[in-house]
């Protein structure tokens, strides 16, 4: 619910911003895109170890393939990405602004907020205009199975795309790129047998998005 509210507010804000200035001579550009992001994961290891009982000794190099511990295979992951950007047009080749959205990685969602630049490639603005985008910022942990244990982290994401201009300052976008996002899970532990557990996460994804700009 929080996510939905957040997104709605973002969109309303952008729409309001877009309407404040006449479209023909607008100094602002807003893009809204949606798509998928794809990546791979390594195989998972047992979640725990059988340290209780007197003569079972834990050996981290031994693969305890007990039925109660999930050992997930390596595989492909695909998740939803929603992305919005609002920026000031310094020149058609350089639009500076901020971006935000929602990204789903495996079973955890993140809300990235980043400083972003966009701009047209090859100098001229035509009906079919290639553009670049580059952003770096912080991802806030969103809905996830670990709740407050999961902390967000730094992200950066470059990409390229094509804008099909409609002629009145609006356009249709197709873009692709890369996303690197870091996060950390500080797990709750029993404090007796397991004293601390931290998972450093680095998500690497390729994304494909479609949307529109105004």
């Amino acid at each position, binding site marked *: 619910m929080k996510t939905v509210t957040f997104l709605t507010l973002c969109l309303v804000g952008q729409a309001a911003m877009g309407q404040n200035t006449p479209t023909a001579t607008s100094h602002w550009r807003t893009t809204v895109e949606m798509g998928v992001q794809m990546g791979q994961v390594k195989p998972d290891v047992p979640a725990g170890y059988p340290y209780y009982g007197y003569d079972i000794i834990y050996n981290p190099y031994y693969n305890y393939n007990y039925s*109660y511990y999930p050992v997930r295979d390596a595989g492909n992951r695909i998740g939803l990405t929603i992305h919005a950007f609002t920026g000031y047009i310094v020149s058609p080749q350089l639009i500076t602004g901020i971006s935000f959205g929602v990204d789903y990685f495996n079973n955890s969602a993140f809300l990235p907020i980043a400083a972003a630049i966009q701009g047209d490639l090859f100098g001229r603005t035509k009906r079919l205009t290639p553009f670049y985008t580059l952003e770096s910022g912080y991802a806030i942990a969103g809905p996830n199975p670990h709740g407050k244990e999961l902390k967000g982290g730094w992200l950066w994401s470059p990409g390229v795309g094509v804008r099909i201009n409609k002629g009145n300052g609006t356009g249709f976008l197709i873009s692709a790129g890369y996303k690197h996002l870091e996060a950390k899970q500080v797990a709750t532990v029993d404090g007796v047998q397991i004293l601390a*557990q931290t998972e*450093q996460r680095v998500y690497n994804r390729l994304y494909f998005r479609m949307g529109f700009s105004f």
Partner: protein
Amino acid sequence: MKASLLVLLLPLVYLTSCTDNCERTTTYRKYTSVQLPISDVRQAISSGAPQPLIEPGKLYVKDQYLFIVEVKKGIHVFDNSNPSNPRAISFLSIPGNVDMAVRDNILYADSYVDLVALDISNPTAIKEVNRVETGFINGLVGRTYWSYDKTSMKIYDQREEIATTTVKTDCEGSFNILPYLIPIAWFGRYYESLAFADVAYNSAKAPTTTTPTTGVGGSMARFAISSNQLYVVNNSTLQLFDITNPANPVKGKSATLNWNVETIFPYRNSLFIGTTTGMYIYDVTSPAEPKQLAAFSHVRSCDPVVVHDNYAYVTLRGTSTCGVAGTQDVLDVIDISNLSAPRVAKSYPLETPYGLGIDYPTLFVCQGNKGLQVFNASNPLDLKPQQTFANVNAFDVIPISKTLLTIGKDGLYQYDYANPADLRLLSKIAAQPAY
């Protein structure tokens, strides 16, 4: 323009991988099996050079000497003639040692299956004079368990250490519940959603193996000397040794105790045995023939006991390995004017109480990490807190001739309590915890 384009595309070249990199770092207690031939354990014991305190255990005071157990390793001997400046004399290497007691010039210490008698008349040159079997063939020390196998003549023990391991994971964490099952399965997951159900189902079963076993912590063997008898308690047995001739302890009767025994406290003609589920009172008017007077049961918790006059002070610590979840931490004052019918006179809530000591009218209660609390116990039914030391770690305490000795994870502290309302720190022997 071409150059700037190149600069923009360079990061893309760098993107060689779309694989998540996740590393889980876990710090845990690691137990390693150790086998000790009994012949190694039975090497003659003699004093060695002083060693730093690492994991201090029980504390014992005899005249001006101070004995501190290094859990399962041996005993540190200190000359404490000047409590402001205790001086390390020697270290006795005794495998499997957890407890001790002194009669005259003889120090009794346990060493796995044996009771060792050591001559301490010259503390700089302590030597072994005798050794008898206790009859105990297994025991719990802290979180580790040892046992003795007669046929292979070996002690099977565990070494506990803190270890860290880092493993690569699939970035999905370990979890028990999935509150966002539906939206995430819809948006964020590619592979079959049954994996969730499987994980949730299996992790629900897992606690049968991952709940800490109760009764492991704090149940060390305990020693007490009353008249000519040495009483040694194991988890469930009270074993007597006749020490009429101190250098030659003779194994005597034994009594079976049904509860996990934690402490033994001799007072006048009685023995008070604190267990995880209650307190036994034994009459030792005839020392070699202890008679059970009462078994006073309470909720399951850790409970050292001390006695003064008609009142026994028992601390119950629920929040630990020997308690059950939700048990309250209290200090109980038990009326024992009738030894065969003890009853709780008053209960005081107290955070994580460990060992305690009384030098009437002052009562000292250790609170582990929470420090040490001093009470005025002139009226046991109305204990008045006098002073609190929050910054010490204390699990056992001995008040002796206006000097208070407290032992904890960070070492031994000595206080002057000539004025019980204002304890003065005399000295500290710092421990260097292994972790």
